Every structure is written in C-alpha cells, then in structure tokens.
C-alpha cells in the first residue's frame, strides 16, 4: 500500500525547484541563440554570399569580419605569451610577495571596466598617433585578454597533482623543465580552453574598441596603423541607425559573430584531448 511519505515528497519538491531554477538560468541563453538565428538568417539568405564578402555599400560586412579576425589575432599575439608567463609565475611562486600580488592584481584586472582600458589606450596610442588604428584596438583587447589567460593558466596547472612534480624532480628534471615539459603538457586541455574562452571574450568586446579601433566598413583594411572595423562595433553602429534595413543587417552580423564563435570553439574544444591521469 502506498504510504504518505514525507521524505519522498521533500525529495520531489526539491528536485522540482532545482529543475525550474536550472531552466530559468539556461532559458535566456537558448533564447539569445534562437533569436539571433531567427532574426539573422533572413538577412543572410536574402543577401547571399555578398553579406560575408562585400563592403557595407555592397550590403556586406566583410571588412568587419576581417577586422575582428585581425584584432583577435594581434591581441592574442601580444597578450598570450606575456599572460602565459605571468600565469606560470603565479603558479610556481604562489606564496612569494610578488606571486601573491600578481594573483590579487589579476583578479582585480579581470573585473576592470573595459571602457577604461579603451580610454587608457587612447591616451597612450591613439592621441600620439593621431588616428584610430588596428594596433591600438588590438592592444586594448590584449590588456583585457591577459588577466583571463593568466588566471586560467595558473588554475589549470594548479589542478595537476603534486605527485607528478615530485616524480619529475626525483629523476633529476630541473625546475623550469618540470613546468614546461611536465606540468603544462598535462594541463594542456585546461590551459588551451582558457585561451579559447579568453580570445572569444575579447573578440566579442565593443566598448574598448570605440575609441581605439575606430571602425572601417566601406573598404577593407590595408594597414595596421589605420582604423579597422569589428563585428560588435558594427552592430553597435547599425543599431543606432533609424533605418530598418540597418537593423536587419545588425541581426545578420550578430548571427555571423555567433557562428564564428561556435565554429572556432566547438571543433577546438573537441579536438584537444584530455590527458588521462
């Protein structure tokens, strides 16, 4: 006979609450993806391949796509090597004064308002150079990128059990080589995932580019010292326009940004094999 069971009722109601809350949390994410697809696909289909390759006058966002790629590439080139070294340092010397200061500073800079980074780069690069430029934009993005890469690197390496470090030392592997030949390769999945997330984050930034990269949509960029466009920046510009055609284009650009993100993220994430301990 089925009995009135308080324990079971509690369990199911708790499970129910958890399910509802999880749904509420995930729902906006799927809603964003769905809306971007629904509203963007029309523009993409009706304009055709020109949307990807053409300039703004031709009805395309080609210069913005190239601009985003240039900015992300040079931001990575400037930021990743430095940030990786900082991450390794923070991992290797967590208790030293500089190590502690580094960790604290990284956490602060992660939360730093990105528009202030843009202003800073304006001061040190854009004003002296007298123009917006790809290099200024990339530099601003690199500053934002670095604390993320450093923190992810440090965290990924800290996850590796101490015993592998001991093992390396016990067979006479020097300290530097232990870090680069043992710990970092074992932690590679965590480190590379961190890189991906960081690059994806800065590729989607708008605020720091407003007064550094400038924007360029009528022609393709041909110099790093000249202004350059970016997809998020273009979306920002288009949305401010009163014309519905511009709004449709902004949706199309959003879809392209989302697709680039997914196309880069998913295969890379799947291809990095985890080192099985």
């Amino acid at each position: 006979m089925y009995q009135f069971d308080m324990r079971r009722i509690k369990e199911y109601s708790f499970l129910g609450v958890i399910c509802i809350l999880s749904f509420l949390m995930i729902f906006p994410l799927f809603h964003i993806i769905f809306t971007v697809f629904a509203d963007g696909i029309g523009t993409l289909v009706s304009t055709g391949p020109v949307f990807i390759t053409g300039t703004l006058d031709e009805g395309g966002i080609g210069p913005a796509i190239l601009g985003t790629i240039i900015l992300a590439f040079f931001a990575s080139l400037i930021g990743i090597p430095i940030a990786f070294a900082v991450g390794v340092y923070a991992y290797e010397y967590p208790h030293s004064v500089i190590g502690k200061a580094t960790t604290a500073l990284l956490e602060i800079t992660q939360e730093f308002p990105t528009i202030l980074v843009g202003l800073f780069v304006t001061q040190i690069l854009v004003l002296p150079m007298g123009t917006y430029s790809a290099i200024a934009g990339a530099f601003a993005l690199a500053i934002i990128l670095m604390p993320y890469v450093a923190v992810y690197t440090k965290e990924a390496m800290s996850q590796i059990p101490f015993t592998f470090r001991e093992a390396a030392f016990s067979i006479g592997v020097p300290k530097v080589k232990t870090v680069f030949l043992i710990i970092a390769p074992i932690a590679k999945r965590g480190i590379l995932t961190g890189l991906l997330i960081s690059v994806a984050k800065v590729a989607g930034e708008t605020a720091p580019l407003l007064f550094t990269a400038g924007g360029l949509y009528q022609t393709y960029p041909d110099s790093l010292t000249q202004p350059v466009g970016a997809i998020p920046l273009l979306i920002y510009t288009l949305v401010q326009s009163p014309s519905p055609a511009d709004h449709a284009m902004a949706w199309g650009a959003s879809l392209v940004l989302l697709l680039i993100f997914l196309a880069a993220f998913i295969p890379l994430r799947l291809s990095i094999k985890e080192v099985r301990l």
Partner: protein
Amino acid sequence: MSKYAIEVENLNIYYGNNHVIKGINLKIPQKTVFAIMGPSGCGKSTMLRSFNRLLDLNKNARVTGSVRLFGRDIYAGDIDSVEVRREVGMVFQYPNPFPHLSIYDNIALGLKMNKLVKSAEELEGRIEWALKKAGLWEEVKHRLNDYPSGLSGGQRQRLVIARVIAMKPKVIMMDEPTANIDPVGSKKVEDLIFELKKDYTIVLVTHNPAQAARVSDYVAFIYLGELVETGETGKIFTAPGSKLTEKYLTGKLV
C-alpha cells in the same frame, strides 16, 4: 667507502613550528631492504624525502642534522641536489608515470634530461633493460608508444620502478609502493623488491608490518617522529625490545 648506503645522524625535520622528525639516528646497510614502518602520520614519508632532498620542494620544511649518502653529507653546501636525486631513485605511494608521455618516453625522459646515454641505440637498449629488470617488458613490449593510462595500477608502479632503475641509481626508495594497488599487483612489486636488492639498496616505507616482515632485512619503527627501535627484521618481529613495538606489531597501537 662506507659500508652503509645511508647514515642518518641526529636528523630533525620541522614544518614551520611543527617538529615532525625528532633526532633520528639510522644506519642503512648497502644492498639490503631496509623497511621504515610506523602508523600513518608518524613522519615516515617526510623522513624519506629528506634522503634525496625532495623535501627541498616544500618551502616550509627545515632539516637539521646530517644525512650521509655513501659517506658524503648530502646537505653540505657544495652538493648538487639534482645529482643526489639521480643516485637515490624514488617510487611513490601513488603510481605516477607521466600521463602525457608514452611508456617509452616515461623512461627516456630522465635519461635524456641527465644526458646519461650517448646514442639512440644506447637509449633504446637502456629502456629495454630497465623494463626487463622491472619485470614489465613482456607485458608492454608491443605497446611502448601507448600512454600509461592503459596500464593497471601494478603495471604503472612497475613502470615507475623501471623509470628509476634506468637511471642506474645506487639507492631506491619506495614510499608505500603497494598502498594503492591490488593484491596481485602488490605481490609482483614485492617479488621485484626481493629481486632488486641484489643490485641496489632499498629503503621501503610501509604502514603494513606484515609487508616489512615479508620483504625486509632490517627494519626501523618510527612513532610520532621518534625512532623507537631498529635492527634485523627477524629479531624485531620475534623479540621486540620495546613494549611500543610489540603493541604496534600485534595491532594494538592506534
């Protein structure tokens, strides 16, 4: 040359203000199995790590007294700790072959790092020799390029032993080498210890008195950081000199 592989004199180890090892004196004869036993947390592993300067990794640890390796004080100022670790190999409680390197490269790494072999042929020969010596060759000879994740716990531990042997150390230290592997794997490791003592001095840390009785020639009993008793295994197990040892051996000490 001293007839002892390791001589420990008035060894004290501190972690910060915590006095972990208290004035221990030990003499470990060459080419024997010397077991260090005691309950968990008594400082055995810490002491073992002071014999190859692995304790240097721990910034809080401080060592006083002397540890002599074949007559040479390894804490003297002019000693290269990397060289000490090359002479004193170590096998760990958790079988820790490098997970991102193949079986072959696990053994090759230390040899290359320390430039112990001169040619590719010599490297290959040394790896085969070490795997044979560790009794693992037959099981892995067809899959030297596989990762160690495919090996059982016991096989991994023997791979670690091969990694150590390949360096041709004089002393092999084992920190509870069978604590994390199944009985069959443990038996193989114990048999191997028996085999290895012909060529090497083996220092075995164990919290299992039965294991010490099975494989060791000499034994030291450590309790709360102090040496209670040391001597020939047979003697200590049949006629312990201290009440504490007797209680430990009969399982009455918690």
